[in-house]
């Protein structure tokens, strides 16, 4: 197949791999323990000892951002992975099954989509208590429905395509149609959506921490770091700028990967 190589995608994937690996290596490259306080070193500016300065409790900001990245990315990947898998399975079943099953599953999807993410999550965490596990569960409860709706729509379009009719006439079973015809055409757009949602998930987890129902201090997480630093916006702005910048770069990177992937998977290009 004579197609232009997706160099932009390759560059973006390498950058994302490096970016993720960087945070995964936090225990090895962070110069300080992210939770060790030192009141004598509080609110220090950038120096050779503290690359990004220190916070109000004298903790090294660079080390906290490294560890925070590990937590933020881990939580976002888990949320997207779990809700994506559930959503694709339920949406695929709704789109490919009988009208009766489709009707019931569609009602369930609409019902879940009717509730705002935040309200459900706040209610869930209010009952179960704030923790990383509860943040993940509370977001998965509603987020799967978004992927289910997209998957159902894509499968519905594919299953009525003329090539499915032609495949049935050449003896293809339902399982083969699903595996050989529908999945290869449905997965690429879904992967693009899921990757672009990774950025949203990072912001959502950070927002939860920011309003105090996500990751709890002193655990480092980008949103939690922002929360604990909000009183120092004027006196020590770096406490908010650096974690904010880390969130910004991550979100932009995943959005670019989504765009590059969309271009690369477009078979007509």
């Amino acid at each position, binding site marked *: *197949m004579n197609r232009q190589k997706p160099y932009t995608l390759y560059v973006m994937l390498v950058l994302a791999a490096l970016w993720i690996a960087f945070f995964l290596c936090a225990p090895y490259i962070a110069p300080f323990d992210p939770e060790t306080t030192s009141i004598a070193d509080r609110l220090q500016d950038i120096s050779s000892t503290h690359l990004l300065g220190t916070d109000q409790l004298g903790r090294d900001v660079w080390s906290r951002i490294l560890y925070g990245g590990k937590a933020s990315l881990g939580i976002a990947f888990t949320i997207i992975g779990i809700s994506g898998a559930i959503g694709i399975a339920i949406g695929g079943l709704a789109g490919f099954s009988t009208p009766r099953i489709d009707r019931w599953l569609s009602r369930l999807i609409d019902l879940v989509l009717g509730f705002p993410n935040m309200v459900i999550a706040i209610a869930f965490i209010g009952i179960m208590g704030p923790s990383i596990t509860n943040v993940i569960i509370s977001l998965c409860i509603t987020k799967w429905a978004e992927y289910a709706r997209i998957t159902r729509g894509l499968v519905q379009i594919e299953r009525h395509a003329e090539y499915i009719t032609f495949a049935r*006439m050449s003896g293809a079973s339902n399982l083969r149609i699903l595996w*050989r015809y529908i999945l*290869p*055409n449905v997965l690429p757009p879904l992967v693009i959506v899921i990757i672009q949602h990774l950025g949203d998930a990072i912001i959502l987890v950070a927002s939860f921490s920011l309003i105090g129902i996500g990751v709890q201090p002193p655990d480092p997480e980008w949103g939690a770091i922002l929360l604990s630093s909000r009183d120092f916006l004027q006196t020590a702005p770096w406490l908010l700028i650096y974690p904010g910048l880390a969130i910004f770069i991550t979100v932009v990177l995943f959005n670019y990967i989504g765009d590059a992937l969309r271009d690369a998977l477009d078979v007509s290009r």
Partner: protein
Amino acid sequence: MIQLENICKQYINHNHTVHAVDNVSFSVAPNERVGIAGGSGSGKSTLLRLIALLEKPTSGNLWLFGKDVTSIQNYTDIYRSMQMMFQNPLAVIPPRMNLEAFLLEPYINYGLMDIAAAKEDIRQWIQHVDLPETIVNKYPHEVSGGQLQRVVLARIMLMNPKLVLFDEPTSALDAVNQKLVLDLLQKLHREQPFGYVFVSHDIGLLQAVTDRIIVMKDGQIVETIESKRLKEAVHPYTKALVEASL
């Protein structure tokens, strides 16, 4: 080979009943070439889809290869002997499947032969429909409409069907490719006899490729005539179609 008895197909559209096919009866003998002509909305394509078992009739009986198919649920055995060629070849080939994988599908699904033998058979069929062997490595969007339609024809013929249903297979092609596909169809029919039903709005085209033409208007058959005696048509609608095709 095909027998239709009082076949009706109705749709409800905004509380209004549309009689897409209205009390149609006819039969097609083995290896017979039958054309169905008519204007837009005459019901010819719906009738073909009913024969292809893609839609269920509202009433009436349909026999294919001697079997009453109005009540059966699994069509796999019927499709082993009956194939359909659609208008747009690009729509019948999955966009992410290369042409070799597309051509291999019936061999795998019906267990016709092992993959190595199937690939060799595909190579011969591709030569037979006057296409370069390398075309099998391409994806549908990399091939012209005329070439794709010949690939589709090869896939249909490699199943050695007894009956093929053609739903305006040349209407999306230019005049040169239209002639290529029609000549190829005639060549294949001479070599490997099979019956077919060819639907087209162009009655002149049907005269060239069929033995008998059924003319439809408003879901009903208005006239059935031998192709070579088309000029002797008596129904005004048939005469109008003949005049329009000249």
